């Protein structure tokens, strides 16, 4: 574990989006608790995967780290420097070091700019003048991400989704960052293309030593890409561990349920135990008290409703494997019951 | 009445034999009712009147504009009035009074006797007190729009006439008016001689108002009628319905016929629109007349070239003169003023107004319907109506003012924006440097009536309030009439003119006086040249095919409503 001197240190990170309302004068009447007290670190060159259901706050976390959003609370430290509330000027020196790759290959490229402009833009903004000129560098980058350097003058709409995502990667690489936040970079791509991009990112991470916060909802992809994985549920991290630990020995019921729900394209392998969660993620405006997962958890007790479980190294966990559960699963737990589909019970 | 507010002077016309009305003073017999029958006329029916605007005032004391007088003729009665014959000649006769009044030798005391059988619309008697009350009301603070001739004459205090009397509502009467209820006489003691005071009293500002039925400010909306009709309904700015006043006795009225059972006026109909309606002649429009507005230039050709249509028209010259004031305080050189007159393109201007049928070219101050009018053409404008640039140039050269800048002000109105074009061309041709200055037409007169304005030549016009020259020459050229909001816009303050006005104004015999005025007119034009006379404007009116007796009111330049009737 490289916790000693992490590249990125996030503690107690919180983001509440205010809800306006009231009468007759508008004011803040509530908040979407999108992210609520996250603690994690990312070491240099390491890839941290962030998984969870839709709306659990993955993107918000990513946007907080890149400071596209102003945190409501907590602290973000990058290489020892507190950037929690740094403004544009304060961020300028580290702007080039933290970059982002976006989910939507269509929306993330300005349709009115050529590829060359899109990639050289960040260099221009940060006053980077590589040897041999920016155009040369852009062509290099295009090559690195597996695109034809001659496509320099083309427009995004002339590329396929996978190619566009490569352009996005090239743009992020243009500033030679130390940390890239990739927000579901492959979710919008076809399976056949998805693999291309995952490979590219992996290559980039390994060869250039760039650390990643890799956001995804596809557990298989995350497993493939990230050395460490954090599972989020409703604005909180419920479990964080090294890859193998997490996939082989999930301690949190939610992690387990999540893993069991992934369909696998194999017919001969014996069917995995199946846990079927009922209902949807509750609203982050009024999250359940105590453990936020308790409304969908088959193990929930009184305690879960009153006491929020801390994210700790549960008994039997390897070091660095933290779980936020009062009743963590054990390896030999009997397979969870296939939950009744009685909807009333879940409501 | 005067040159109308703003830019509504668009005239139009066509060559006819009509050359202005003759005005005479009638006898007691002329003053005795009823009015002579009109051949073919029958009682009954309704005449419809179309107009762009509602009457702005109905309270007689607040009536001065000619347009308001067109209805005042049906409702209000003054001591005197004009009896108009079918050819348009007018006679001053007694209306409420038995005759045109008796003046003292010095013309400072005027006495009138009321006819018998005069009644208000509610049947109460119309007395000399009511006549006096009408005049005393002029001092009421809410009456601000009236003519001021009588007030001036009665108090002799000039512009401060209001200070002389506090108005009738505080219980006091004006000392200068003496009434005798028993004898039905009313006597005016004037501060200065006024030989034409009986003309003055024909103005509707001096009509009688019932003491008992006076509602002060509210009277303006609901006046009490002494005339042949009374107001039945009035929807302001939209319509007005008049019905017969049963208490009006034709025997007391030598002026008014009253054939229709009622009138219905429709307001808000723009002139072009109303003309088209009258031309189309459908439905009730067959019984309709245009109250005040003549056929606009755009329809003159249509109206005059269609023989069927032309049969349904009458026309007349407006009472006043259109001219251009020359600011003598700015254009101080007589030669330059004369050059301006020579240069002015009268013919082209009239072309824009609609050609010869739009009116006659003017060459003098006085208009043809003024008593004593004599044609004079000092600058040969009638022979060279298109302008004489050579002569103008020569005069300018003489004066050493070649290329002098001339600021010409005119109301911003489609017609004058057009005449501006030809005027500018003519001035350039004559060697002036013209500056053309359109002025917002709603405040046009306000602006040019500022004595320190910066205009050299200004479009304008003036109509006399009664057909004697005094009401033209005095307001326009008397030095006393210089001031903000006053009409001596040329700012002529020349002692011989002032003296001549004073002298001529007291000549008792109006024919004599007329001659003197005409001579003064010519002299002013020759020696001072303070205005450029332009046209005596002619107006054409179309009326519905079922309307009879439609004729021009030479006094108020409108349709003479009380002579109309519904054809069988």
């Amino acid at each position, binding site marked *: 574990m490289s916790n000693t001197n992490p590249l990125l240190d996030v503690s107690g990170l919180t983001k509440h989006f205010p809800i306006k309302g009231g009468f007759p004068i508008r004011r803040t009447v509530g908040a979407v608790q999108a992210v609520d007290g996250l603690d994690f670190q990312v070491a240099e060159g390491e890839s941290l995967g962030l998984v969870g*259901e*839709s709306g659990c706050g993955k993107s918000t976390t990513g946007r907080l780290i890149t400071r596209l959003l102003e945190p409501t609370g907590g602290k973000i430290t990058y290489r020892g420097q507190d950037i929690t509330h740094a403004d544009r000027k304060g961020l300028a020196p580290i702007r080039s070091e933290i970059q982002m790759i976006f989910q939507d290959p269509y929306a993330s490229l300005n349709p009115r700019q050529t590829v060359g402009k899109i990639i050289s833009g960040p260099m221009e903004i940060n006053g980077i003048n590589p040897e041999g000129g920016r155009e040369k560098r852009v062509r290099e980058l295009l090559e690195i991400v597996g695109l034809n350097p001659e496509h320099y003058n083309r427009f995004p709409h002339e590329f*396929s*989704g*996978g*190619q566009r995502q490569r352009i996005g990667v090239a743009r992020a690489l243009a500033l030679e960052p130390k940390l890239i936040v990739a927000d579901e970079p492959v979710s919008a791509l*076809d*399976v*056949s*293309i*998805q*693999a*291309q991009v*995952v*490979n590219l990112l*992996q*290559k980039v991470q390994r060869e250039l030593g760039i650390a990643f916060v890799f956001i995804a*909802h*596809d*557990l*298989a*992809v995350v*497993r*493939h890409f990230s050395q460490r994985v954090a599972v989020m549920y409703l604005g909180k991290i419920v479990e964080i561990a090294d*890859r193998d630990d997490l*996939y082989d020995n999930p301690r949190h019921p939610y992690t387990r*349920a*999540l*893993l069991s*729900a*992934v*369909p*696998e*394209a*194999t*017919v*001969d392998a014996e069917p995995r135990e*199946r846990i*079927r*969660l*009922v*209902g*949807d993620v509750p609203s982050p405006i009024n999250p359940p008290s105590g453990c936020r997962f308790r409304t969908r958890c088959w193990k929930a007790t009184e305690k879960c409703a009153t006491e929020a479980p801390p994210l700790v190294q549960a008994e039997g966990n390897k070091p660095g494997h933290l779980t936020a559960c009062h009743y963590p699963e054990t390896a030999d737990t009997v397979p969870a019951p296939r939950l009744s*589909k009685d*909807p*009333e019970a*879940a*409501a | 009445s005067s040159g109308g507010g703003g830019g509504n002077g668009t005239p139009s016309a066509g060559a006819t034999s009509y050359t202005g009305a003759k005005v005479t003073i009638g006898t007691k017999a002329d003053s005795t009712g009823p009015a002579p029958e009109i051949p073919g006329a029958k009682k009954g029916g309704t005449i419809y009147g179309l107009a762009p605007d509602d009457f702005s005032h109905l309270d007689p004391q607040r009536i001065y504009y000619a347009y308001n007088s067109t209805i005042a003729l049906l409702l209000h009665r003054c001591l005197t009035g004009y009896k108009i014959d079918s050819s348009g000649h007018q006679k001053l006769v007694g209306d409420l009074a038995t005759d045109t009044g008796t003046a003292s030798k010095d013309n400072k005391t005027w006495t009138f006797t009321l006819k018998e059988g005069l009644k208000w619309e509610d049947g109460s008697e119309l007395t000399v007190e009511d006549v006096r009350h009408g005049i005393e009301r002029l001092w009421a603070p809410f009456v601000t729009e009236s003519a001021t001739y009588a007030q001036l004459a009665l108090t002799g205090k000039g512009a401060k006439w209001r200070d002389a009397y506090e108005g009738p509502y505080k219980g006091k009467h004006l000392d200068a008016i003496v009434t005798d209820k028993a004898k039905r006489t009313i006597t005016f003691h004037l501060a200065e001689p006024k030989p034409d005071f009986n003309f003055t009293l024909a103005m509707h500002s001096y009509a009688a108002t019932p003491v008992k039925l006076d509602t002060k400010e509210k009277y303006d909306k609901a006046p009490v009628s002494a005339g042949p009709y009374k107001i039945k309904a009035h929807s302001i700015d939209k319509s007005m319905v008049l019905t017969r006043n049963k208490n009006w006795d034709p025997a007391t009225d030598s002026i008014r016929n009253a054939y229709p059972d009622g009138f219905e006026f429709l307001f808000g109909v723009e002139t072009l629109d109303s003309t088209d309606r009258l031309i189309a002649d459908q439905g009730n429009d067959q019984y309709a007349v245009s109250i005040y507005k003549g056929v606009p230039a755009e329809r003159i050709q249509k109206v005059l070239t269609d023989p069927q249509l032309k049969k349904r028209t009458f026309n007349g010259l407006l009472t006043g003169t259109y001219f251009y004031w020359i600011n003598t305080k700015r254009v101080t050189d007589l030669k330059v003023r004369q050059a301006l007159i020579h240069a002015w393109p009268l013919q082209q201007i009239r072309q824009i107004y609609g050609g010869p049928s739009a009116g006659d070219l003017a060459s003098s101050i006085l208009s043809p319907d003024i008593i004593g009018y004599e044609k004079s053409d000092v600058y040969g404008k009638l022979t060279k109506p298109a302008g004489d640039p050579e002569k103008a140039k020569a005069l300018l050269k003489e004066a050493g003012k070649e290329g002098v800048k001339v600021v010409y002000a005119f109301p911003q109105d489609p017609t004058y924006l057009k005449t501006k074009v030809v005027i500018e061309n003519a001035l350039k041709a004559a060697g002036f440097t013209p500056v053309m200055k359109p002025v917002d037409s709603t405040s046009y007169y306000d602006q040019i009536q500022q004595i320190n304005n910066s205009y050299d030549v200004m479009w304008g016009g003036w109509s006399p309030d009664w057909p004697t020259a005094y009401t033209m020459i005095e307001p326009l050229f008397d030095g006393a009439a210089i001031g903000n909001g006053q009409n001596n816009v040329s700012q002529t303050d020349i002692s011989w003119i002032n003296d001549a006005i004073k002298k001529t104004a007291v000549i008792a015999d109006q024919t004599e006086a007329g001659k003197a005025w005409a001579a003064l007119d010519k002299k002013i034009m020759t020696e001072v040249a303070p205005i450029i006379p332009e046209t005596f404007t002619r107006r054409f009116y179309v009326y519905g095919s079922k309307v009879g007796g439609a004729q021009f009111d030479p006094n108020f330049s409108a349709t003479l409503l009380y002579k109309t009737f519904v054809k069988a």
Partner: protein
Amino acid sequence: MSTPFLSLRDLKVHFSTEDGIVKAVDGLSFDLEKGKTLGIVGESGSGKSVTNMAILGLHDPRNTTMDGEILLEGKELISASESELEKLRGNKMSMIFQDALASLSPYHTIGAQIAETYRKHTGASKKEARARAIEMLRRVGIPQPDVRVDDYPHQFSGGMRQRAMIAMALVCDPELLIADEPTTALDVTVQAQIMDLLKDLQQEFGTAIIFITHDLGVIADIADDVLVMYGGRCVERGTKKQVLSAPEHPYTLGLLNSMPSLDGPVDVPLSPIPGSPPSLLNPPSGCRFHPRCAFAEKVTDGRCSSERPKLEVAEGRGSACHLTVEQKRELFSDYAATRHN
């Protein structure tokens, strides 16, 4: 063999656009029996949705030309009149669309939209239809259906919307259900719920299901038979087991290889299919997959780029590839080895 329940014969669906003719589906055939689930997989744009919309006759006739045969219980649908189709749609055959939010009318309550279909096809009264709607909602697992029946779609969560869509599609007990990527936008946990639901319903009513997806994992979960589409054509078909464990087409193999799994090795790179999907305006000649195919040069005479490979189907199994069976056995096993260590 009697006539199959649904049978497509050489279906062609071409769109005329201002850029030219888009051959979205170009000669597709398959059969489907009652009570069976056919999974259709393929990349985005491979013509999956177009095929199924063609079955329901939902294409705009103004810019679409359809060719071939669609036989439902022997009845030809391409030439059927609009009113005949109206009677079938929502009744005998119905469809679940991918984007439930966009596919449900935002202006009508969920209940009304379900009831409407029922009334149209059964002539039931308003009250009956409403009761039916509530029952359907209950059946698809909507909590408090008698209350939620009056909600609008935007008041539902993503999973609930998709369930409402399903309820609507099933309200008249259709014999054919087409599910067009019903779970793609959903979380895995919700996806699992929906698929369980579909399976249960099929068991209950013996519905024939066409399940469209581009996720082979989902196919493995739900389908009996699989049809792999590429560039508007079928490249391979067979039972789920056949296709997933012994693919016969390089594209299918590529798809399988490019998928990361929950238990495979993690330190080796994935094996993607190079290149990008074909343009349907100017599709590659011959085999449409050949520009991306790793084995194209193994076939002599450049046949891959010149000759369209035939889809030889025997007992529901077949693929469209010029490689010989031997070549496949040899070449594919290498690849399979890299996959499962």
